[in-house]
């Protein structure tokens, strides 16, 4: 990739065949999103474009470069083992969509 300029013109020349509808369905399942046929179709184009764009990074050499997941080199941030009060049942019930007998009710867990 040309790292010298912000090139906005690649959009027109891009082919969006990198991610398939099947992959999108699989990822949607992992992410627990319901995607119908039409949505998968639209996403194929949009995600294809985006992934192709971000995929340009492969052209930058990063041999031996360390990965940064946090910008500050901070370490060992702890709290003492001191317990504090729990949220009250009423406070939890107030935000819960379905609360029963002190628990969050959900469809049967297998």
């Amino acid at each position, binding site marked *: 990739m040309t790292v010298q300029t912000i090139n906005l013109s690649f959009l027109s020349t891009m082919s969006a065949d990198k991610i398939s509808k099947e992959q999108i369905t699989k990822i949607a399942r992992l992410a627990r999103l319901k995607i119908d046929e039409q949505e998968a179709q639209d996403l194929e184009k949009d995600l294809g474009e985006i992934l192709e764009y971000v995929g340009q990074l492969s052209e930058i050499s990063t041999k031996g470069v360390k990965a940064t997941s946090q910008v*500050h080199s901070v370490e*060992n941030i702890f709290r*003492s083992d001191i*317990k504090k009060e729990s949220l009250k049942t009423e406070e939890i019930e107030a935000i819960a969509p379905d609360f029963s007998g002190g*628990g969050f009710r959900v469809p049967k867990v297998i």
Partner: protein
Amino acid sequence: MAQFETVIGLEVHAQLDTDSKIFATSAVASGDNPNSHTDPVTLGLPGCLPVLNKRVVDFAIKAGLATNCSIEKESVFARKHYHYPDLPKGYQISQYDKPICLGGYLDVKTDEGVKKIGITRIHLEEDAGKSTHLETEDSSLVDLNRAGIPLVEIVSEPDMRTPQEAGAYMRQLRQIVKYLGICDGDMEKGNLRCDVNVSVRPVGQEEFGTKVEVKNVNSFRFVERAIEYEQQRQIAQIEQGEEIVQETRLWDEQRGSTKPMRSKEFAEDYRYFPDPDLPPVIVDELWVKKVKESLPELPDQVIARFKDIYQLEEYQAERLTEEKIVANYFDKAVSRHNNPPVIANWICTELFGRLNKEGIEFEECPVSPAYLAELVELIDKNVISGKIAKTVFDEMFQSGQDASSIVEKQGLKQITDTGEIENVVSEILAANPEQVEELKSGKEKVLGFFVGQVMKATKGKANPQMVNELIKKLTNG
């Protein structure tokens, strides 16, 4: 037909005995109302951030040192993603490629001798909550009291070959975490849990067979039974020409079998990545040194001490150290009265027997170590006989009173006055002339009869040795 060998590895989860959760301030407690130990972080509310409980790191270092692991300088928390109602954030904070401990082992005592079982790693993570199925309706209730309780996961190498070895490893690990005081080891409550990886391969084959993970194995017995079941199932399957599928199965304790847990077509993809909310943990040598100095005596060390200093037999030392509380009891008793072998005997026979019979946990033992020591002291000082001591012990167990008071109150003191015993012996001899003759003619058996009679007459209080001597003296004379 080929001979098969079973290959077993264990992943043991131990809940750490801290006051508050690993990343949150709510209490670590069980058995209370659902969701009564929660806070915004535990519930995974929007905007919440984790902050690591330092004590948890100390505990993990302890676990690592006790299992001969190296304590890693840098460890990193990662997010493991999956959706389940008892997992509040949609990910579990765990350690992935940078765990806190690596490469240890345990010398496990098996029937075939000591076997070295490798420990791949120990890492820290948070526990999930619990869902309870409601029978009356098609729904479940989620309780997050357990969510966020700190866990260490101790992963073994696939070094075990029999269910018994796995059981022995598990027992030893439980003993260690209990000695360390980092986990109560209660498997029934799920505070110590075990996932078992089992595969089989023809004897002589180098590479491992396809492994199956069995979850929900919550007692030593089940660890062994689940492995037994799996090895049979897998061997049968191979012999029928079928392939073993790599899968996760669930131990069904009612049926004594395992069943597939998840649908096979849905492969998990945990999408691990370093948690940006948690800076890395750096453990330097000084920290390790401090924890090392604070380590309690571990079972092997206690066994060695009991053998060396107290001159106990191996089997007795082992029995006394199975539970830390027993070893402590023994130590306390011995410090009160220095007769280790006899005290050990009393604990292993009378005390264990009685607790067992009454179904009482050692924690609730009604006889204090000092009282037991005193009882042995009374025997050693000839205040009471060994036989009377058992009566006294029974009374101590019932009433919780000390030995001296019981002996005093019930007049159980041994009669050691020669004159007094001689009078009783003379009376008995006089009343049984036939037996006296028999004894004189060399029938040694009759001696027992006389001793019995004397003891009966003195309600067991006469010193049996003195009785013996006096009978001999008076019949010879």
